[in-house]
């Protein structure tokens, strides 16, 4: 069997005299490649955990100055509100469009608000706000901190007696965890308004029936679970993005890669944490309200 295989970063497969690469060599190269990837992955997770631990130690030791906190709260929270509101509105309207024909077919279109509002408050609002935060703020944080790393500004902070994690990471983390609930509420609210507007004004569903059924659909625990999850999303975005910035490779390519990886890893972790927290929150909900399990 004669194959032409090119492997990067691997020891060259041992070639028999005829120059061919055997299946055994390919398997060897494959194991080496995946083994290295697993080791690197575990090392990176450990490194991120240490980075987060140092940040938590600073939070409980000494908070940053008020001016530093306010700047970050404004840039991360206030400036994200318009884009979260806009995307929330569209998601509410899209849900109305997608659900209408199924509900109309069985004559339940006046119940459209239940599915729109429940989907938004429990799932789409927090995930959408977190995704927008990761895209708008997470990648910007990685790019800013990465540029500071490359231009030695982070070293300059250290030489002037300021700890870079305390000065740069703690305010960003606090801004993310304290303001993502507000962004989530904004996404929920604008989605509900968007869904209502499209259902009543465009799809011509009765206004009073839509509102009545909407009110019945969402319970307080739904709102709580959405906001509770968002805090974890915000914290994860801040830690991953700041870590990427701090470990940025030199050059324009390094900064670009840090910004991209900050968004990609944050987004993957948002969905992973979402799954994990949904399982836990469902267990808590059914423990608190056993009747809910019977309904489902």
């Amino acid at each position: 069997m004669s194959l032409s295989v090119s492997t990067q970063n691997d020891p060259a497969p041992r070639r028999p005299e005829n120059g061919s690469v055997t299946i055994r060599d390919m398997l060897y190269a494959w194991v080496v490649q995946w083994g290295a990837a697993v080791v690197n992955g575990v090392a990176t997770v450990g490194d991120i955990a240490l980075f987060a631990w140092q940040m938590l130690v600073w939070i409980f030791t000494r908070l940053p100055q008020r001016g530093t906190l306010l700047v970050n709260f404004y840039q991360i929270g206030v400036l994200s509100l318009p884009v979260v509101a806009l995307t929330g509105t569209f998601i509410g309207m899209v849900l109305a469009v997608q659900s209408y024909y199924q509900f109309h077919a069985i004559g339940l279109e006046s119940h459209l608000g239940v599915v729109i509002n429940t989907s938004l408050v429990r799932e789409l609002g927090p995930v959408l706000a977190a995704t927008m935060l990761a895209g708008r703020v997470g990648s910007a944080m990685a790019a800013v901190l990465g540029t500071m790393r490359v231009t030695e500004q982070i070293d300059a902070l250290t030489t002037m007696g300021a700890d870079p994690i305390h000065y740069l990471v703690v305010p960003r983390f606090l801004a993310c965890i304290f303001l993502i609930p507000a962004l989530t509420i904004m996404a929920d609210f604008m989605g509900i308004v968007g869904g209502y507007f499209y259902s009543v004004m465009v799809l011509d569903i009765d206004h009073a029936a839509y509102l009545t059924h909407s009110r019945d659909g969402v319970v307080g625990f739904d709102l709580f679970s959405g906001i509770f999850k968002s805090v974890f999303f915000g914290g994860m975005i801040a830690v991953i993005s700041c870590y990427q910035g701090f470990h940025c490779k030199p050059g324009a390519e390094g900064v670009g890669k840090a910004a991209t990886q900050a968004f990609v890893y944050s987004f993957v972790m948002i969905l992973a944490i979402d799954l994990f927290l949904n399982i836990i929150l469902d267990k808590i909900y059914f423990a608190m309200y056993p009747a809910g399990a019977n309904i489902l």
Partner: protein
Amino acid sequence: MSDSAAEHLIDVQHLHVDFHGQKILKDISVSIEAGETVAVIGESGCGKTVFMKTIVGLIPPTRGTLRFDGQDLSALSPPALSDVRRRFGFVFQNAALFDSMTIFDNVAFPMRQSTTADDDEIHERVLKHLQEVGLPPTVISKRPSELSGGMRKRVGIARAIILQPELVVYDEPTTGLDPIMSDVINELMLDVRRRYPVTSVIVTHDMRTAQKVSDRVLMFYPRARLAKDEPQVLYDGPPAGLDQCEDDRVRQFVRGEAGQRLMEITG
């Protein structure tokens, strides 16, 4: 603490530094006395910047001891190291000014970080130090991106000396500047030394800077090209002695001659 260590502001013994998987510094032993101005020269990649970052605690040594004023820096906790660093001033190669801040906030940063001085006192000190490096008060509201390379370097010097440190470290202070601005920076380094009782370490490959500003020159050589058991510091002495050094590699560097290196690089 030994007697010899007590006499020196910086005492480095058998220092080895591996950085990003590469062995950069090998068995460096150097002492710098208070008030001295030492130029560290050598070709690119010889480890002079790593040496400089190690003595201010930015890169941890792999082996060996590093004492500042008798204190072993590698044995200090992060808060204690932070306190010691307040006795250092550091001028970065590209100034490393915070581009999100104005020039005023950049120069005021060390005071705000490390002192309880009020706004009036900070304002007065910032203007005084900007004036010392030849910058007018009108620059304080500008951003670093609005200044030329030479002006940014001067702001970097003002920021480094605002806390009147005992040790000022300059990383390639004249690199990328025109000859006149390079001489202005050389004069400013001499002026800092005249005004304040500082010890200076200047990492440079500009021989004019080394000869004009320093009392003593250390020449490093890339570790990969050293013979076995050969010391990495090829020259340690006054700048006037560089030309008469017996080692060809030192004279070749001082005169800026490619010599055998051209053959080694181009094959």
